[in-house]
């Protein structure tokens, strides 16, 4: 029954908010209500997650989100603008942006063509490659080594689609397990049900850092795709999108993004004080140098 309940809830929320969301632009809405609603995740470490304070998210994407809030305050001349947080999941994030519940979602959402039909994306805030996490002793070095093996990935991700497509096209005979979240995918790997875990490299580093013995694991393989994460907002709202994009571009240009990056990827992060040790990739460096709101597949 859970899925129907969820659907009904979404539908009810949708109908309740549908009218005001369509009537005015996001900036007008923020101005008249005096509140900006930020969408965040609960466990996308280190992008957007809840650690010590259950009411306030932290993370790399959230720090960038706050840069946008500063810009909105300046633009609307509302130094006392209130910020409200709204937790989203991978299933609710798009509808909640569309129906006006959330004004801006920054987490770990890949910008792709399907999603562009439903929402607008900011300039890219991060770029990942889809790679493999495996035990150092497994002998797996790259994707061709996966022939006939059990491989896990997280349900609903681009990695799942890529892996399934690769399996079909190259007839690799892999058994693909779709686990419900990254934590469970890693459990499948750790418990020996799968020899490798395919996912966004940043998230693989995050899982590795959480492992009992991080030294036993290694991220390997040639990236099968690059994906650009973006912040989501409603479509056809150029005024708001401009504020968002400008704020992010300014952060990139000033180099402040490097400080934020180091804080979350090269130093211990809450809650456990893990250090991901994930240096900035060349792909992301060029994205920072030349910001774009296109998806990786369009480039």
């Amino acid at each position, binding site marked *: *029954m*859970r*899925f*129907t309940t*969820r*659907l009904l809830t*979404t*539908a009810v929320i*949708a109908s309740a*908010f*549908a009218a005001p*969301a*369509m009537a005015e632009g996001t900036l007008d809405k923020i101005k008249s209500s005096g509140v900006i609603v930020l969408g965040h995740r609960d466990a996308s470490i280190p992008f957007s997650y809840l650690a010590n304070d259950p009411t306030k998210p932290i993370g790399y994407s959230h720090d960038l989100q706050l840069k946008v809030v500063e810009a909105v305050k300046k633009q609307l001349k509302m130094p006392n603008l209130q910020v409200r947080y709204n937790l989203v999941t*991978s*299933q609710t994030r*798009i*509808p909640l942006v*569309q*129906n*006006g519940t959330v004004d801006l979602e920054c987490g770990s959402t890949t910008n*792709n063509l*399907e*999603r562009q*039909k*439903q929402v607008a994306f900011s300039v890219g805030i991060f770029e990942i490659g889809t790679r493999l996490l495996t035990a150092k002793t497994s002998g797996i070095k790259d994707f061709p080594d996966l022939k006939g093996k*059990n491989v*896990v990935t997280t*349900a*609903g*991700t681009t990695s*799942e*689609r890529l892996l*399934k*497509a690769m399996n*079909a*096209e190259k007839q690799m005979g892999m*058994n*693909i*397990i*779709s*686990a*419900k979240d990254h934590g*469970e995918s890693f*459990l*499948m790997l750790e*418990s*020996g*049900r*799968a020899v490798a875990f395919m996912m966004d490299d940043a998230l693989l580093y995050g899982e590795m850092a959480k492992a009992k013995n991080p030294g036993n694991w290694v991220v390997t393989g040639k990236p099968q795709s690059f994906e650009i994460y973006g912040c989501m907002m*409603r*479509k*056809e709202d150029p005024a708001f999108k401009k504020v968002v994009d400008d704020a992010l571009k300014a952060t990139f240009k000033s180099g402040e993004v490097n400080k934020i990056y180091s804080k979350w990827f090269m130093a211990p992060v809450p809650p456990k004080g893990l250090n991901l040790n994930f240096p900035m990739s060349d792909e992301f460096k060029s994205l920072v140098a030349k910001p774009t709101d296109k998806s990786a597949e369009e480039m």
Partner: protein
Amino acid sequence: MNYNWDWNIFFKSTGIGSEIYLDWFVSGLGWTIAVALVAWIIALLLGSVLGVMRTLPGKALPAIATGYVELFRNVPLLVQLFMWYFVVPDYLPEPLQTWFKQDLNPATSAYVSVVVCLALFTAARVCEQVRTGIQALPKGQSAAALAVGFSIGQTYRHVLLPQAFRIIIPPLTSEFLNIFKNSSVASLIGLMELLAQTKQTAEFSANIFEAFTLATVIYFVLNMSLMALMNLVEKKVRIPGMMGGAK
């Protein structure tokens, strides 16, 4: 709301081989039925044995059955599923453990875990229905059967159970429907049943409402068909002369 409806999505390519999204729903429905039906058959058999045990004279057998019911009814289904999938296999003896976790197709090992889990969980509920059905019968029925020389087993087989099962068809029907709905927990251990395929379609296509709407319709039609089937069964076994069943 700025939602971009696209009902043709089900006929569009998923980007994997030549599959369209509708294929995913068909295969998901297939897994859902395969999980629920097999688990139901096991649950019905095991639950009946346990239900009979609870009504037997003596102490030991009823106590075992009662303990079973308490255990399986009071632990949340999801916890049980994770036990069967992640914990129990780790306690299998060695060659078996590797075989179950690595050699067996992951879909098969997930299937086995979820069928065992749902069967044992539902058996506890069936047990209670069967017990209630037996206890609702007049005491004279078992006395009459014993008096003609039936063993306890024959008394249950020929006299008590045929009547008890007729009484409990309505609650059993609702357990039967529940097992189909509960089978959606399989999506959490990576078995691509209907709910998992729905979520996958929603994620990949970003047409969330269409995906969940189709799933709702499929579950609804499935449940309605099962209910119609059970009504037919109930009519078929109705006793002439009782409760408006006169011919």
